[in-house]
């Protein structure tokens, strides 16, 4: 949500920026240049505070749609787990629990770094912020690598969805269903992680260019919310798939 640079329109519509959201404290760190225009909201907003609220609300509303995405899939999972409890339990034991535990810790740490990145930009410590973002990015990458390894192992064993299922040691009825749901739901989650990594990369570039400051870091907050959400989804998926007794 980049605000537009000021133009004649601003004066003509008489919407003077209110005291809130004016250019932030003078930058003493590095050579970050705060463009006064960055603090001015787009014309549809009465002040920068409103614009920031709008950005935040937009992300929250979007996340509620994501919740519904996963909720529907988890509903399907619940139905089939109820139908095939023994098969699901056997499949769950078959998965590599320790790898998944490490993945969970990894994502949680990555979320922590994301939060730290926002903390540091508020303190105007741009370099530390970039560092934290990079670590968050690496956390996501590590998750994808580990998860890819899990998928590869399953594929070689034949624990695949539906008609590709080949693994003999797990119950023939119920296991293909488990793996169909497992691959689709965790795959969808992995796509979200990849998208999140892309967004974090974008933030790093923008930060290096000096676009964010303590006065304006809305996109970081938005991506931060998204990243925490992706983490939360995994916290739900982990016990559902890996911790069945």
């Amino acid at each position, binding site marked *: 949500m980049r605000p537009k640079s000021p133009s004649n329109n601003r004066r003509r*519509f008489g919407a003077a920026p209110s005291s809130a959201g004016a250019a932030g404290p003078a930058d003493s760190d590095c050579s970050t240049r705060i463009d006064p225009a960055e603090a001015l909201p787009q014309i549809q907003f009465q002040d920068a505070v409103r614009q920031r609220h*709008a950005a935040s609300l937009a992300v929250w*509303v979007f996340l509620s*749609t994501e919740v*519904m995405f996963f909720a529907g899939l988890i509903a*399907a999972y619940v139905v089939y787990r109820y139908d095939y409890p023994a098969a699901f339990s056997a499949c769950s034991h078959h998965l590599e629990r320790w790898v998944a535990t490490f993945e969970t810790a990894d994502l949680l740490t990555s979320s922590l770094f994301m939060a730290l990145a926002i903390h540091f930009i508020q303190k105007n410590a741009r370099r530390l912020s970039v560092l934290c973002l990079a670590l968050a990015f690496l956390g996501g990458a590590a998750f994808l690598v580990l998860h890819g390894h899990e998928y590869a192992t399953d594929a070689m064993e034949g624990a695949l969805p539906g008609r590709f299922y080949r693994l003999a040691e797990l119950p023939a009825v119920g296991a293909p269903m488990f793996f169909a749901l497992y691959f689709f739901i965790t795959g969808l989650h992995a796509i979200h992680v990849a998208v999140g990594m892309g967004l974090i990369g974008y933030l790093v570039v923008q930060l290096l260019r000096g676009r964010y400051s303590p006065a304006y870091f809305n996109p970081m907050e938005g991506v931060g919310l998204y990243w925490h959400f992706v983490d939360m989804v995994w916290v739900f998926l982990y016990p559902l798939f890996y911790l069945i007794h």
Partner: protein
Amino acid sequence: MNPASLAPEHPPSAPARAPSYLTAETGPKSWLFTHDHKRIALLYLGTVSFTLILGGVFALLLRLELLTPENTIMQAQTYDRLFTLHGVTMVWLFMIPSIPTVFGNFLLPLMLGAHDVALPRLNLLSWYVFVVGIAVTLIGMIAGGTDTGWTFYTPYSTTSPHEVIPVLAGVFIIGFSTIMTGVNFIVTIHTVRAQGLHWMRLPLFVWGIYGVSIIQILATPVLGITLALVCLESFLGTGIFDPLKGGDPVLFQHLFWFYSHPAVYIMVLPGMGVVSEVLPALCRRPPFNYKAIVYSTFGIAFVGFLAWGHHMFVAGQSTAANVMFGVATMGVAIFTAIKIFNWVGNMYQGQVVFNAVTAYALGFIFLMIFGGLTGVALGTVGLDAHWHDTYFVVAHFHFIMAGPTLLAFLAALHFWFPKMFGKTFSARWSLIGAATTFFGFFATFTPQFLLGNMGMPRRSYAYLPRFQWLHVASTMGASILAAGLLITLFTLIHALFFGERAPENPWDATGYEWACASPPPPHNFEVTPVITRGPYEWPVIPEEARRAT
């Protein structure tokens, strides 16, 4: 007149007319890359007009085929594809987008006293995603088209040899457009309201859009993953809905209807918002009970999520489930009843002006009474055992959903035509179009109630001879309906090019959107408004301004 303290109801007459949003910039790029919500609304208007005509052509072909019990103009497979495409086009390519994307986009900032929506670039993106989705769906249609019905029931949809995946993908993409629109509107309503515009001063149309947006963002994702699961099963044989692999085909129905039942409210709530907005203006008095309309809107939005199982009364659900869904269905119906009583009451002690818009609004109410009460009848469970999947249901949902949405769309188009284009249309021809459309609609679908009573199943290419004469009657009605729509189309196109210049507020309506010029300048208001009155009160005009007019 101090602009800071009064809503500028009568902008000082400028010596030269300032450029409107239509003329301020020219050239295709200024339209295709615009951020202006009004131009985006017109982009959508063009698109949904196309999809409406497309869906209508499919319907006419179906009705022609049904003139005789066997082959009339096409084979069974073509017929099956056509009714599927009619459903998909009308539901996702027309009814769900139409009123929110055209009138929501155009009017929301105006009604909120703002210069644009909260997220203008997301707004433009939503249109592009919509167009891409339509293109993918059309590719699917041309490639042969699926024949599963717009409901895509498994296992037929996962085992059918026909082109299911492109159509599913197209609908999936359009779902994203819907979500973007919903997000945008919710954020807009929360954050760009003018000073003085607190919640209970919002116009009822805005409340309607707000309710719709909530349903859109919560329900559409479930449709998305359901269609994705069907694609996966069709493509990879995952077996999630296949009983041979341990799957449950009825699970698909639960997931599908969990979205599709709220979807019918996505289709009809904006229309209700239009009628709630238009009636006070045409009856020239405030709504009968403003809060009742607001609360019933949210009642529909929330309770509507609980009633999906009434599509599955005979699908093998438990009796307990049937009872619960029946109760939820009756609950949702009450909210519509509240609105109907309030709309009829709006005329009480009013000064009712009769024109095409009034005709559309009253027609909306009339169809909703029959559609709603037949819905209650279906919701009793016991009667549904006879009517389910017959023409009775087809008539019911056209009466409650298709007809009202279409009429409300046309009502909105006529009512805000002067605002959007600055032109007037022929009062006589618009009324002829409205009356013809309404009577054509009634004549098309009333025979279908009787067909359902007789037991004719829906989605049937061939039928027993005793059903024929009712089908002929229905097809005759459909031709009248088509004629009415054509009359309306020509009337409006004529008005667009040759209509007289419209006055700023031809209806003398109270809405905030009439406070700016018709058509508005690119950023809506010369001076950012401050709202000091309710949406259904006439502004207080100072003496000197009144004497000047």
